C-alpha cells in the first residue's frame, strides 16, 4: 500500500532507479509469527538486493 508513496517520493526526488524493499502491510495487529514472516521476507529481499548490487 505504501509502495505508491515511496515511488512518488523517489520520483519527486529524481532517484527513480533505487530498489525498494517491500514488507507486507499492516504490522500493527499482527501476531508474533506474522511479524517474523515479514522479517524473513525483508531479510531475503535485502540479501537479494545486496547480492544484485555486488
Amino acid at each position, binding site marked *: 500500500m505504501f509502495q505508491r508513496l515511496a515511488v*512518488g*517520493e523517489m520520483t519527486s526526488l529524481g532517484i527513480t532507479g533505487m530498489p525498494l524493499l517491500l514488507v507486507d502491510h499492516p504490522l*500493527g495487529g499482527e501476531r508474533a509469527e506474522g511479524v517474523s514472516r515479514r522479517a524473513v521476507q525483508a531479510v531475503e529481499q535485502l540479501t537479494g538486493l545486496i547480492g544484485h548490487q555486488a
Partner: protein
Amino acid sequence: MSTDVLELQDSPEAVLAEFCKREWCDGLPIVPPTEDRVQAMLGGRDGGTVLGAMPPLWRQASLEKLAVNAVMAGCEPSYFPIVVAAVEAMLDPIFNLYGVQATTHPVAPLVVVNGPYGRSIGVHGGQGCFGPGFRANATIGRAIRLILMNVGGAWPGRGDMATQGSPAKYSYCIAENEELSPWEPLRAGDTVTVYGGEPPHNVNDHVATTAAMVLTTVADTAITLGSNVGAYFSQAQLMIVLGPEHAKTVAGDGLSREDVQRFIYENARLTLGKLKLGGMHGMHDWPAWMNALRDDAALPPRVPSPDDVFVLVAGGSGKHSAVVPNCTFSRAVSRPIAL
C-alpha cells in the same frame, strides 16, 4: 509567474473539470488562479521566496505556489499572511509534517489564530467557529489543505495514507475568542499556531455548575481507548477548546489556565488494566517508569506534562466545548504573523 500557464475555456465548469482531472483540487469549485489574482495575493512579496521543501514529495514551497493555492481556495489577499505563517510553522521539523501528511491517522493541521489582525480580517472565534459560514476560516483552512496536496503531494491513497480521511482535511481554522476568554490569549500578539489534530470531539455538559464538574467531563472526553494520545507518549498533546460558558464556570471557581492544564493532565487518564484491552497497547513508546507499572489500577499519564495540554476559548452561547486530540507524532508550533 514562474509557474506554467494553463489556458482553459472561460467557464467555472470547465475550470473545475480540468483541475479535478489533473488532481489539483479537493473536489470543490475553485477560483481560477490567474496571473493577476496570484500577483494580488502576493501583495508585492517575491514569489520566488522559498519557505522550505514540503513532504512527502519534497517540492519547494515558494510564496508563488502558496499564493496560487490561496487564490484557488478563495482567500482574500489580506488572508495571505496567515497562510504563510501557518506554512512556516508546519515546516518546522518539530511539527513532523511528513508524519502528519502520510499517516493512516485522520490528522489535519488545525490553524489557531490569535491577535487583532486575525479579528480585523474576519477570522472567527465565536458562535459556530469550526464552521461552516465564515469565509476567512473556510478559505484559510482550505488554502492550507490545497497547499498540502498540491505542493506537498498529499493526495489520498498516495501521499496521504489516511485510512478514512476526515472532514477536517477540507478546512480547519479558527480564531481564539479572546474577547470572551477569562484568561490571557493562548499566544500573545498576532500569532498562528498549527496543531496536528483529530476533528473536534464534542464535550456536552449542561449540568455542571463548578469547575471540577466541567473539567471532569472534559477529561473523560479527552481520553479513550481508541485514541493515539498516550500511546506515542513523548509527543502526545491535547487541545481543550472551552466554550465561553464552560470557561466562565471554570474561571469563576478561580482556576487559571495553568490550573486547567494540570487538572486535565492529572484526570484525563485510563487505568492500566483498561489500556491493556486494545488501542495501541504493546506498540506504545512509554518511558521506562511507565513500562514498569504492574498494578492494573494504576493511572499513567497520557501526555508528558501539563504544558502538553493547550487550553483556549472559542465558540459562542451553549454548554459545549471540544477536545482535539493530537496524532502523537507531531508537536504544536506557533509563528508570528508577518504583516
